[in-house]
C-alpha cells in the first residue's frame, strides 16, 4: 500500500508526506483520501510522535485540490452529499488528532488542499510566490464541501472569509499570516528547518498559547459578527457584491454565503452537515458541469500547438507592428509587456504617437491597479520604438500587420514589407475577416504568412484566431500559436473564410438584432434579453462598442461570402450611411453615450424600415438571436472551420463573451436538444426569414440523434 503518503518520525516530529505518484501535483482523489485516513490512524498509534506535520513532496504545490474529474462524475445530490461527508469525516480525524497538527505549506494549497490545512491545528506557510491559499470551488459552480465554508470563517472571521470563498481568489503567504489564516510565514529557502523550529515551539503548552494568541490578534473585525444583525449585514453586502459581478447568473456564490452564515449559527458538526447538503445542491447541476468542462478544455488548450507533433515554433524576441491604430497600439503593448522588442511602422509620427498613447494608457492602468510595478511598465514602454520607413525591421522574427481592413491596401503594404524582412521572418495579419490566402497571393514567400486575429480591446480579450492560408507552413503556424501563448492569450487555429470563426457567428447575431428592430422590437428590450441570457453586452450595445462602421464592413464581407442568409438588414445600410452614427467612438449609435452611461438613441427609429408592427415575444427575440448563431456554428463545425465543438465553444467564450456557465453555443444546443432547436428554426424560417432554415448539419444530427459533444 502507501501510494500517496509516507510517514517518518524524526525527533518526535511525524512527517506525513504527500507525494502523488507519477504526477507533478498532489490532488485529493478518493483513493488518496482513503489512504490519508489510514495514515492518520497509524500516526495516532505511533508512540514517539509528539507533533504531526503534513507536508508535500512536490515543488511549489502543497495540495492543488480535489480531483476535478471525480467531481465531474458526481451525478446525483445523494452521491454529492455522501462524497462531501466522507471527506469531512477524514478531515475530522485530523481535527481531533490528540497531538498538535501542522500543515506545512510551501506552494499552492487550493480547494480541498486548503480545507485539509484548515483541519490542522496550525498552518505554517512560506513566502514562495507560488504559495497561494484559496478556495476556488465557486469557479467550478460548486462550494467547498470538505469544511471550507465552516472552518475558514471560524478561523479568520466571516468578513475576511466570505470574500475569499465567493471570489474564489487566493492569498499569498504573507497575506495569509496577516489574516490569521497562517500562524507563521517563513522563508521558503529555509522551509524545513523553520518548520522544525515551529514544531519545537508548539511542543510546549505555553508555546502553543503564544501562537494562538498571536493568531487571535491578527484576526480583525470579528466584533461585527457579534452584533445582533452583524451576520445578516455582512451576508447582504456579500450578496450585493456577487450580483454586481455576476448579474446573478451563477448560483454557487449565493449558496456559499448561505452555507457560511447558516453554519455559523450551528455547532461545527451540524455546520459541516449543512455544508454537505448545500454542496450536493450544486454538484452535478448543468452549470457546474459546464464550468468544469470549460476548465478541462482550457487545460487541454495549454498543450495545444495547432500543428502535428514535431513541428517546432521559432522563438520570438524582436517583433514589428505595421499600422499604429488602436489595435496596433494594443498589440505593441502586449508584445512589449512580455519583454519582446517592438518596432512600430506607420506613415507619420502623429499616428505613431497614438499607438504610444494607447500602450501607455494600458501600462498606466496596470500600475494603478498594482498589477505591474513602475519599473516594469517603464521597461515595457522602452521596448517600443518606431519608424516611418522600414528601418530596424531586419531583425524581427515576427511582424504583425494591423493596417486598415482593406484588401488592396493590405496587399500593397505586405508586398512592401516583405522586401525588408529576413527570409525566415513570419508575417501575421491581424485581419478580422479578409481572406488570408488572397492576401498572401502577392507574396514571394506565402508560406511564412498567416492570419493572427486579436480581438479588441487587446488587453482584455483572451482569444486569438490563428488563420493559416492555403500555403502557410506548419512552422509558421507553430510560431504564432507559441507566440500567442507567450502573450498569455488563447490561440485557436481556424480555417480561412469570411469572418473566420467568431465574427462569422457573431455578426449575424448583431445583424439579427437589426432585423428585430425592423420587426418592431425595442433596442433596450433586445439588449436586456441577451444580457439576461448572460451575454456581457446585448448585440446592439456590442455593435456600438465595436463601432458600427467596423461591424457593418464585416457584415458586408459575410454577405458577399455567404449570400442571402447573411444579407445585411436594409436598416443597417441606412444607419451606416449616417456619419455621426459610428457607435461609442462617435458618441452616438444605437445608443447615445455620455461617459459610461448610455440611453437608446431615439433617432434610430427614424432610420428603421418598420414592417407591420406586431408584438414580438421575449422568447422569439431570444431564440432568433441565439439560434441564428447555433445554425451558423453547426455549419462551421461541418465545414471544419474549427477542429471540434469544444474549441468553437471556448472561442465564443473568450472572443465574444459568451457566458461561461453555458459553456458555449454547441453545449447550449445540446442541452436544449438538437431536435427542439431544429423545430424552432423551422418555425422561424417561416415567420422571420429563410435565413433560419436549419443547416444540413443540424438536420443530419437529428436524423442520427447525435449531439455536438457526442
Amino acid at each position, binding site marked *: 500500500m502507501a501510494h500517496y503518503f509516507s510517514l517518518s518520525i524524526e525527533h518526535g516530529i511525524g512527517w506525513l508526506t504527500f507525494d502523488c505518484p507519477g504526477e507533478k501535483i498532489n490532488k485529493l482523489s478518493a483513493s488518496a483520501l482513503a489512504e490519508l485516513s489510514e495514515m492518520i490512524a497509524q500516526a495516532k498509534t505511533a508512540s514517539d510522535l509528539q507533533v504531526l506535520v503534513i507536508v508535500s513532496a512536490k515543488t511549489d504545490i502543497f495540495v492543488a485540490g480535489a480531483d476535478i474529474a471525480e467531481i465531474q462524475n458526481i451525478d446525483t445530490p445523494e452521491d454529492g452529499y455522501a462524497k462531501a461527508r466522507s471527506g469531512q469525516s477524514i478531515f475530522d480525524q485530523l481535527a481531533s488528532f490528540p497531538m498538535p497538527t501542522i500543515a506545512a505549506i510551501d506552494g499552492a494549497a487550493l480547494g480541498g488542499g486548503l480545507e485539509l490545512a484548515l483541519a490542522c491545528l496550525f498552518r505554517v506557510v512560506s513566502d514562495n510566490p507560488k504559495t497561494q491559499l484559496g478556495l476556488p470551488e465557486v469557479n467550478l459552480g460548486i462550494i467547498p464541501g470538505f469544511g471550507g465554508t465552516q472552518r475558514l470563517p471560524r478561523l479568520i472571521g466571516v468578513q475576511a472569509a466570505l470574500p475569499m470563498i465567493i471570489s474564489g481568489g487566493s492569498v499569498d503567504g504573507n497575506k495569509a499570516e496577516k489574516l490569521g489564516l497562517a500562524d507563521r510565514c517563513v522563508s521558503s529557502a529555509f522551509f524545513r528547518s523553520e518548520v522544525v523550529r515551529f514544531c519545537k515551539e508548539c511542543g510546549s503548552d505555553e508555546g502553543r498559547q503564544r501562537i494562538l494568541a498571536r493568531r487571535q490578534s491578527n484576526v480583525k473585525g470579528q466584533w461585527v459578527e457579534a452584533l445582533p444583525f452583524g451576520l445578516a449585514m455582512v451576508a447582504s453586502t456579500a450578496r450585493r457584491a456577487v450580483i454586481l459581478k455576476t448579474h446573478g447568473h451563477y448560483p454557487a456564490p449565493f449558496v456559499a454565503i448561505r452555507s457560511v452564515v447558516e453554519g455559523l449559527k450551528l455547532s461545527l458538526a451540524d455546520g459541516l452537515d449543512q455544508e454537505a447538503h448545500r454542496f450536493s445542491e450544486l454538484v452535478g447541476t448543468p452549470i457546474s458541469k459546464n464550468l468544469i468542462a470549460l476548465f478541462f478544455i482550457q487545460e487541454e488548450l495549454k498543450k495545444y500547438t495547432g500543428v502535428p507533433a514535431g513541428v517546432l515554433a521559432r522563438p520570438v524576441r524582436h517583433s514589428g507592428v505595421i499600422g499604429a491604430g488602436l489595435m496596433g497600439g494594443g498589440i505593441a503593448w502586449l508584445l512589449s509587456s512580455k519583454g519582446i522588442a517592438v518596432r512600430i511602422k506607420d506613415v507619420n509620427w502623429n499616428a505613431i504617437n497614438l499607438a*504610444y498613447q494607447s500602450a*501607455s494608457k494600458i501600462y498606466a492602468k496596470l500600475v494603478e491597479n498594482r498589477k505591474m510595478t513602475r519599473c516594469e511598465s517603464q521597461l515595457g514602454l522602452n521596448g517600443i520604438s518606431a519608424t516611418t520607413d522600414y528601418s530596424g525591421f531586419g531583425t524581427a522574427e515576427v511582424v504583425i500587420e494591423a493596417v486598415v481592413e482593406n484588401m488592396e491596401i493590405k496587399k500593397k503594404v505586405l508586398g512592401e514589407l516583405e522586401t525588408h524582412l529576413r527570409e525566415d521572418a513570419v508575417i501575421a495579419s491581424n485581419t478580422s475577416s479578409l481572406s488570408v490566402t488572397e492576401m498572401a497571393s502577392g507574396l514571394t514567400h506565402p508560406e511564412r504568412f498567416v492570419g493572427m486575429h486579436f480581438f479588441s480591446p487587446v488587453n482584455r480579450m483572451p482569444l486569438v484566431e490563428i488563420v493559416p492560408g492555403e500555403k502557410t507552413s506548419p512552422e509558421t503556424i507553430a510560431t504564432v500559436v507559441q507566440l500567442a501563448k507567450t502573450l498569455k492569450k488563447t490561440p485557436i487555429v481556424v480555417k480561412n473564410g469570411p469572418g473566420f470563426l467568431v465574427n462569422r457567428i457573431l455578426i449575424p447575431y448583431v445583424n439579427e438584432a437589426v432585423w428585430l428592430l425592423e420587426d418592431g422590437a425595442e433596442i433596450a428590450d433586445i439588449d436586456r434579453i441577451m444580457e439576461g441570457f448572460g451575454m456581457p453586452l446585448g448585440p446592439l450595445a456590442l455593435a456600438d462598442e465595436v463601432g458600427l462602421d467596423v461591424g457593418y464592413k464585416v457584415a458586408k464581407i459575410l454577405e458577399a461570402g455567404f449570400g442571402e442568409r447573411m444579407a445585411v438588414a436594409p436598416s443597417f445600410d441606412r444607419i451606416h450611411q449616417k456619419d455621426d452614427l459610428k457607435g461609442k467612438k462617435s458618441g452616438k449609435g444605437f445608443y447615445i453615450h455620455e461617459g459610461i452611461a448610455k440611453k437608446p438613441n431615439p433617432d434610430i427609429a427614424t432610420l428603421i424600415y418598420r414592417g407591420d408592427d406586431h408584438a414580438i415575444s421575449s422568447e422569439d427575440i431570444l431564440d432568433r438571436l441565439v439560434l441564428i448563431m447555433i445554425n451558423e456554428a453547426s455549419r462551421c463545425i461541418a465545414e471544419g472551420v474549427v477542429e471540434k465543438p469544444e474549441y468553437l465553444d471556448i472561442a465564443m467564450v473568450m472572443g465574444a463573451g459568451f457566458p461561461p456557465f453555458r459553456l458555449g453555443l454547441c453545449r447550449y444546443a445540446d442541452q436544449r436538444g438538437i431536435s427542439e432547436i431544429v423545430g424552432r428554426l423551422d418555425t422561424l424560417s417561416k415567420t422571420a426569414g429563410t435565413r433560419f432554415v436549419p443547416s444540413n448539419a443540424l438536420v443530419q444530427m437529428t436524423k442520427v440523434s447525435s449531439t455536438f459533444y457526442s
Partner: protein
Amino acid sequence: MNERIAIIDGIRTPFCKAGGQLREVSADHLGAVVAREIIARTGISGEQLDEVIFGNVSQPSNAANIARVIGLRAGVPQRVPAYTVHRNCASGMESVTTAANKILAGEADIILSGGTESMSNIPLMFNKKMVRFFEELGKAKTTVQKVKVLLTFRLGHLAPVLGIVEGLTDPICGLIMGLTAEKLSREFGISRQEQDQYALASHSKALAAIQAGRFAEEIVPLPVPPQFKSVIIQDDGPRANQTIEALQKLKPYFDRKNGTVTVGNACPLTDGAAAVIVMKESKAKALGLNPLGYLRGYGYAGLEPERMGLGPIYASAKVLERTGLAVSDMDLFEINEAFSAQVLANLRAFESTEFASQKLGRSTALGAIDPDKLNVNGGAVALGHPVGTSGIRLIITTLKELRRRGKQRGLASLCVGGGQGGAVIVEVE
C-alpha cells in the same frame, strides 16, 4: 591612433529647451530611445555589442551609472556591460574616444556610445540647515525631543540649493560659466555687438538647416512620455523671428552692470541625447557596413578654469599635432557655442601668432578658420547644449554635413567647464 575607428551611424533626439517640452522626460529615457534607435537603424543587434558607454554630466540620483540603465532599457542583453563617463561638457565626446581606446586596446569590437542629459531634471536640493534639521528630527525619540527640534525650524531652512547653479559654477576659480565668457570677451576685445551678430547668424543658419531637412537626417522624432500628447520632430531652440534688435535689448545676465554676455548670445539649458555605434574600420569592412565616417584622432587639453572657453584651441592644437594635419586640411569646423564670446575668442586665438607662441609653444599661428566653414548649420546658441550630449552631436553633424558636401575631413571641438577642451578629427572616406 594606429587604425581609424568607424562610426557606423549616429542619431539624436530633438534638442529642447530645459523646463519645456521634455521637462517630464528622464535622461535615461532619452538615452534609451537613441540607443534603441541606433541599434535598429544600423542593424547591429544588441547581441553583437561588447560595451555600452554613455556620457552624462548631471548623473540623476535615480539612475546611478546611467549607461547601464540605458543599455537595459534599450534592450541590450544583460550580459553586455556598461559604464558612464564624465568629462563635463565633453562627456559625449569622451564616450566615443573612450570607446576608441577600448577597441584599439583589443578589449572590445563593437561599442554603443552615447550622451544624454536632462537639464530639466537637475534637482533643487535642501540646504545644509534643513538636512541637519531632518537628521535631528530623525534622532529625536520622545515627543518632547521632537517638539524641541521642531521649534528650531526657520523659514530660511527652505531656501533651496540650485543644482544647476552649483553645477555651472567652477569650484576652483569660483566663477559661474557666464563670467568666464565675460573674461574672454574683455581679454580678446569682443564687443556685445559682435556677440549678438554671431548669435543671430547661429539662429538663421540653424533655421535654414531645419527648413532644408538637414537635421531630420540625424534626429529621431520623439513621442513624449508619460502621456504621449505630442511628438517632437525638431529642435525647439532656433527662433524664426530672431532680430538683432531683440538681442540688443536683452540685459547682460551674469555681469549685470558692465557685461556683454546675455541669454541671447549664450546657449540655453537643454535636454537631449545622441548615440553612435563604433568599431574598427577593418571590422566595419568585414561586416560589409558602410560607415557614416571615421574618427581619425582626438585630443583633450587642460587650461585655466577661468578661461575654460578657450578649450577648443588647446585641444585642436593637440589633435592636429597628433595626426600631422593642419587647419588648412579641414573642410569643416564645428566649435560648440557655449557662448558666442567664447567661440569668437577661439577664432582670434587660432589666427594669432602671439597666442600660439605664448600658450601653445608654437612659432606660427595654428591657422585661421574660414567663417564659411564654421558651424555651417548653426550651433548651440540656437540648438542648445545638453552638456552630456553635445560632444556626440558635433561629431554626427560634422560627418553628415561632410557627406552632403562631398567633402572629406572636419574638426569638431568644444570647451569644457573646469578648464579643458576636447577636439576630434573625423573623416568620411
